[in-house]
């Protein structure tokens, strides 16, 4: 052990080892989440400006299948957050088998989300939606922001599934600590949190009214 002034350790603001009483991995993940929040905020703010200021913004989403599917996707992602919480709890208890089981359930939720989302993407691409144009007329920006925002989110989900896979395998082999599991949970909940803004802004603001 290094020779540390005990005063410094007892007072976090005088340079104690753990200023926020969390491990450095957890603090690091929180700082990443803060910066990634701003990335998504910038995209969503730019989108919101286009959405409100374009008089002919397309409303291409019928209740079935688009809104129905995206609502199911939202509930699936929320459910996967619940299973992740159960995994983190099992980790805090020290129950390795339960951690692997709950994380696998979370990954399944993530994959189901991506599957449903890809189906939606292919459906829209089939209809003729492209990043620079859309088949319904109105602002050509719709495709750019739809593919841009939901695509970046889907990338986060896929990275999350891979990340959780590594954590599940490692935990099964006894490699990771309870903190490692909790940190992967933070990332997963953040991906869920971002969707809570993407879903109303991109989908619900563009529902097709049946007249």
């Amino acid at each position, binding site marked *: 052990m290094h020779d540390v002034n005990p005063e410094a350790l007892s007072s976090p603001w005088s340079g104690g080892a753990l200023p926020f009483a969390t491990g450095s991995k957890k603090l690091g993940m*929180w700082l990443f989440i803060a910066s990634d929040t701003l990335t998504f905020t910038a995209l969503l*703010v730019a989108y919101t400006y286009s959405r409100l200021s374009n008089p002919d913004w397309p409303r291409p989403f019928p209740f079935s299948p688009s809104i129905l599917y995206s609502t199911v996707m939202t509930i699936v992602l929320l459910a996967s957050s619940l299973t992740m919480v159960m995994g983190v709890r099992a980790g805090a208890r020290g129950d390795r088998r339960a951690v692997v089981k709950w994380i696998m359930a979370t990954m399944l939720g993530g994959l189901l989300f991506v599957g449903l989302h890809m189906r939606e993407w292919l459906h829209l691409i089939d209809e003729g939606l492209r990043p620079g144009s859309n088949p319904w007329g109105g602002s050509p920006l719709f495709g750019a922001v739809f593919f841009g925002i939901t695509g970046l989110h889907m990338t986060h989900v896929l990275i999350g599934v891979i990340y959780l896979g590594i954590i599940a395998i490692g935990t099964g082999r006894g490699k990771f600590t309870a903190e490692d599991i909790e940190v992967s949970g933070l990332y997963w909940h953040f991906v869920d949190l971002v969707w*809570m803004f993407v879903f109303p802004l991109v989908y619900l603001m563009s529902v097709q009214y049946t007249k």
Partner: protein
Amino acid sequence: MSDHIEGANAHPEIPAKTFAWVWICLVLITGIEVYLAYIELEPTLMLGILLGLSLIKAALIMAWFMHLKYEKRSLTLAIVPSILFCIGMMTVYILWDAVRLARMRAL
């Protein structure tokens, strides 16, 4: 000892029921949002309501799912206000002009 995880019991156990309730609230708010999307409100008003509800959802997720409620207060104070400030700065740059243009169309 084969099932032991290093660093276990770092937190006091939070009952699973608490998380289930948070989840139910999140699903209910999602349902309200989908319903609201279909009662043809003015876009700026609808946006305001949807964002308000989404902020509540975000707060629920951060407080319970992300354990922020159970962390040291200084972590929340270091992360949340700075993010809100930056989001506010970005919003200020577009908000009034976006609302003005949306209202112009409504006339």
